[in-house]
């Protein structure tokens, strides 16, 4: 508890101090320093919470609706670990990344907001009182909004920030309603939550929509691909890796309060997760802005987490605790895995943006030779996100697959077998599409010939920008190889979620054997690779090795523009799914027999933004305009409205 308090104090003190630094150069050193110290303390507190069960702190702060009640149980500790790991490393990265803005912008304010964001995220996961939770949630949304619009001189950035603000507040409104229903008798304390049987479903629906807006579930994800690309890269990493996970935390916490899991919850989460995942990765495949691609990929991974949790709840509700444990452990582990590899991807994208000054994939290429460390870590993260062994992404997806496969026979006669089939098919589709998407992202960006002048002259990023990526890549590999230990360590977290049905150690033991075998296999792969590399070296030892240009089938002058572009790489698949992706094409061509000028532009709009939200908001605006006659601009008229209302109310009441 001391560690947690220490971390909070460091964050708040740092936030206040940095406000006064302003534009000075020290902000770039002080900000990351405070962030790292605070994160280390909070991580220590979180690990302690997971191992020993956490702490509970009640401060008698009598404001209107509750006390200051904080509680860190293993679930909070786990999310705290994820949040602080990402925040600390992203801060180290950001210190050097923001150096380019030193004299031009208010860096002190930016770092102060960063510290407030981290502190508020830690408060969200430890708040044990509805009002405190909402206050922390709101601080988190507002501080991240200000961080997103860091480059507010560009209108695109402002527009993205605006969409983000509106979306998060719509979600928060629903959460407000939900907490009001949850807290009866004027107390919103979580210890006193008692939900009547009829209120369970509305609360669950409100939680899914409210927290799902923050997490990025399907129709509510539209702010993600707008806000994440425009934010500075270390902020994108924190938002994508840590902030959207607070939505997942909220859903899990509400489900814990609502009692034993029900089958309908499992079905909802599975179907929502499947649709989210498939749509997310399809849209990612169609993007040619690197950061937008990564944002959609975050949507996809939230879908995978939701599938895992849904399978877990379904298993628990139908009386199969082993399946429940497997599904939940897969979903929860994927939270950490996604945080790790998505951070590397966003930080890498930031490095590329830093040196090429444009996020368009079509202008990149050949960066592996110029940015070797960034490229290698980006590749490792891409392999991890496609769930390839021996990295960590494979472990979490394996747990979900394994749960689904085990469920097949167990649920053979019932309706639930359909759920496991949906899980397997959707995970398979998502896996295949993710492979396409990330081989495009990693391959076109880092491999091949540079496609533009800036790419040819790219330079490797600074040492502080590389160190966090290397650390995180190491985490990817370590979690993948040492997965049995990781799952063992996280056991208290799983028990907290399935609290109503104590699963004991035996349920996850069925998963322990495969995980141990996977680790062994990973080590064997590494051994075999070394042997083969030695063999290859021996074979080529005294033979001639030539270097020449790529085979060009006899064309006289191949250029880098003749390579496959990102859009052409993805074209077969995006062509198949054109209707879902809202694809469009603009072709401009000279007329006549020998056209000199030819240009083609493809784009893929988010169909939810254009077909669902825009018409909805236009409709609301139209209806509001009908009432326009009430607004004339005369003060007296408004006071007159007030008086009439007052008099009529008085007459009516009396």
């Amino acid at each position, binding site marked *: 508890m001391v560690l947690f308090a220490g971390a909070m104090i460091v964050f708040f003190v740092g936030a206040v101090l940095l406000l006064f630094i302003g534009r000075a150069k020290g902000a770039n050193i002080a900000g990351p320093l405070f962030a790292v110290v605070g994160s280390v303390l909070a991580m220590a507190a979180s690990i302690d919470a997971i191992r020993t069960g956490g702490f509970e702190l009640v401060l008698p702060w009598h404001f209107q609706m509750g006390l200051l009640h904080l509680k860190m149980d293993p679930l909070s500790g786990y999310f705290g670990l994820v949040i602080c790991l990402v925040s600390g490393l992203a801060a180290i990265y950001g210190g050097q990344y923001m150096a380019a803005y030193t004299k031009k912008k208010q860096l002190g304010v930016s770092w102060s907001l960063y510290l407030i964001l981290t502190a508020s995220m830690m408060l969200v996961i430890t708040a044990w009182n509805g009002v405190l939770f909402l206050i922390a949630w709101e601080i988190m949304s507002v501080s991240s909004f200000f961080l997103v619009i860091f480059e507010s001189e560009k209108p695109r950035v402002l527009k993205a920030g605006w969409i983000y603000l509106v979306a998060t507040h719509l979600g928060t409104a629903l959460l407000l309603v939900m907490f009001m229903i949850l807290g009866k008798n004027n107390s919103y304390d979580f210890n006193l939550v008692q939900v009547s049987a009829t209120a369970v479903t509305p609360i669950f629906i409100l939680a899914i929509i409210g927290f799902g807006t923050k997490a990025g579930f399907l129709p509510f994800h539209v702010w993600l691909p707008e806000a994440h690309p425009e934010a500075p890269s270390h902020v994108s990493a924190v938002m994508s890796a840590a902030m959207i996970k607070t939505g997942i935390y909220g859903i899990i916490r509400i489900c814990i309060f609502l009692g034993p899991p029900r089958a309908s919850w499992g079905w909802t989460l599975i179907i929502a997760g499947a649709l989210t995942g498939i749509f997310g990765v399809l849209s990612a495949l169609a993007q040619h802005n690197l950061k937008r691609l990564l944002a959609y990929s975050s949507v996809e991974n939230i879908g995978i987490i939701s599938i895992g949790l849904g399978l877990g709840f379904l298993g628990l509700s139908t009386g199969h605790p082993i399946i429940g444990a497997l599904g939940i452990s897969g979903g929860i582990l994927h939270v950490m895995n996604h945080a790790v590899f998505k951070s590397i991807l966003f930080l890498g994208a930031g490095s590329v943006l830093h040196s090429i000054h444009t996020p368009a994939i079509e202008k990149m290429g050949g960066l592996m030779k110029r940015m070797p460390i960034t490229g290698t870590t980006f590749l490792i993260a891409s392999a991890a996100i496609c769930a390839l062994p021996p990295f960590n992404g494979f472990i979490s997806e394996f747990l979900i697959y394994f749960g689904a496969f085990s469920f097949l026979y167990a649920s053979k006669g019932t309706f639930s077998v359909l759920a496991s*089939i949906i899980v397997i098919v959707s995970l398979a589709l998502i896996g295949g599409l993710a492979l396409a998407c990330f081989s495009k992202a990693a391959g076109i960006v880092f491999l091949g010939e540079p496609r533009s002048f800036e790419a040819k002259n790219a330079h490797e990023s600074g040492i502080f920008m590389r160190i966090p990526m290397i650390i995180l890549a190491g985490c990817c590999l370590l979690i993948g190889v040492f997965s049995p230990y990781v799952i063992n360590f996280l056991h208290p977290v799983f028990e907290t979620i399935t609290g109503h049905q104590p699963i004991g150690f035996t349920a996850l033991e069925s998963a322990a054997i495969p995980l141990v*075998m996977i680790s062994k*296999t990973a080590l064997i792969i590494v051994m075999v690779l070394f042997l*083969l590399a030695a063999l290859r070296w021996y074979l080529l030892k005294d033979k001639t090795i030539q270097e020449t*240009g790529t*085979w060009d089938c006899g064309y006289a002058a191949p250029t880098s523009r003749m390579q496959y572009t990102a859009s052409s790489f993805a074209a*077969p698949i995006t062509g198949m799914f054109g209707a879902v992706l809202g694809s469009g094409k603009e072709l401009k061509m000279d007329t006549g027999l020998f056209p000199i000028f030819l240009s083609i532009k493809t784009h893929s709009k988010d169909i939810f933004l254009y077909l669902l939200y825009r018409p909805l908001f236009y409709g609301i605006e139209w209806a509001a305009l009908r009432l326009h006659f009430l607004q004339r601009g005369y003060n007296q008229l408004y006071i007159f409205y007030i008086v009439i209302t007052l008099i009529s109310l008085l007459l009516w009441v009396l």
Partner: protein
Amino acid sequence: MKYIITTHLLFTLILCPVIPGIIQKVKAFFAGRKGKPVLQMYYDWGKLLRKGAVYSRTTTWIFKASPLISVATGIIGVMLVPLGKTPNLLSFPGDMILLVYLFGFARFATVLAALDTGSAFEGMGASREVQFSMLAEPAMLLGLCALSALSGETSMSTMFTSLQAGTRPVLAAAIFIVLLAENSRIPFDDPNTHLELTMIHEVMILDHSGPDLAFIEYGAALKFWIYASLTASLIVPPGFSGEWKSLGAGLIALILVVAAVGIVESVMARLKLTRVPQLLVGATILSLISLILIIR
């Protein structure tokens, strides 16, 4: 039991290059030719391993690493897939998921090596490869789903034991189609052609030479053996109780599957590219049908 596993592994690792030879012989038979010798691939190996290598200036370490990854995943896969009744060296519950994703890893490495060369041909091959594998993976996993639902087991070594007659042909057909797709055989890809418009797998390895090419060919042969083992286990009739007997029956079935591939290659032409997704979706539906038949 150790002997049988060792024998199985040695057989596989040494004999898998025979598979392309058998296919060539079958095709030659249909064409009325004498064809290449069955052991042709060994001769090719000897030639390639003695050569030096030529690398493109555009490529990075990924290009050199990808053949190694193909072979490594192939070797591990061989240790996972059973032939006959005995479990293999690395069998464990859920090993089929590892198998599918190991092949995904090999595919990732190959696609990246193809994009590494910065050539339009390899990019084209890579783009088609990811599209077809995206469609083939659900078919494969649904087939495995059907097996798992039937037997209640989640390890490949124990899944094939209880298979009824009705579902066998459907499931075997689905896995056979996936085999053709993943190993770049007709009707998905023609391993003999080198026209840029018609290649998929061949075009991705266009720039590899020397020992790298030898490794890639070996990895492809291992992959073929693995898929053929899966199909063979599906068509072996139940009733072979002894370990050696089931291994022998499995091997014979494997050769039959390989011959069947050769026959398909001889009597069909390559499909139009736009039809390939339809065929793969058809394979998925076949798996789905067998799954539905099992879970009813």
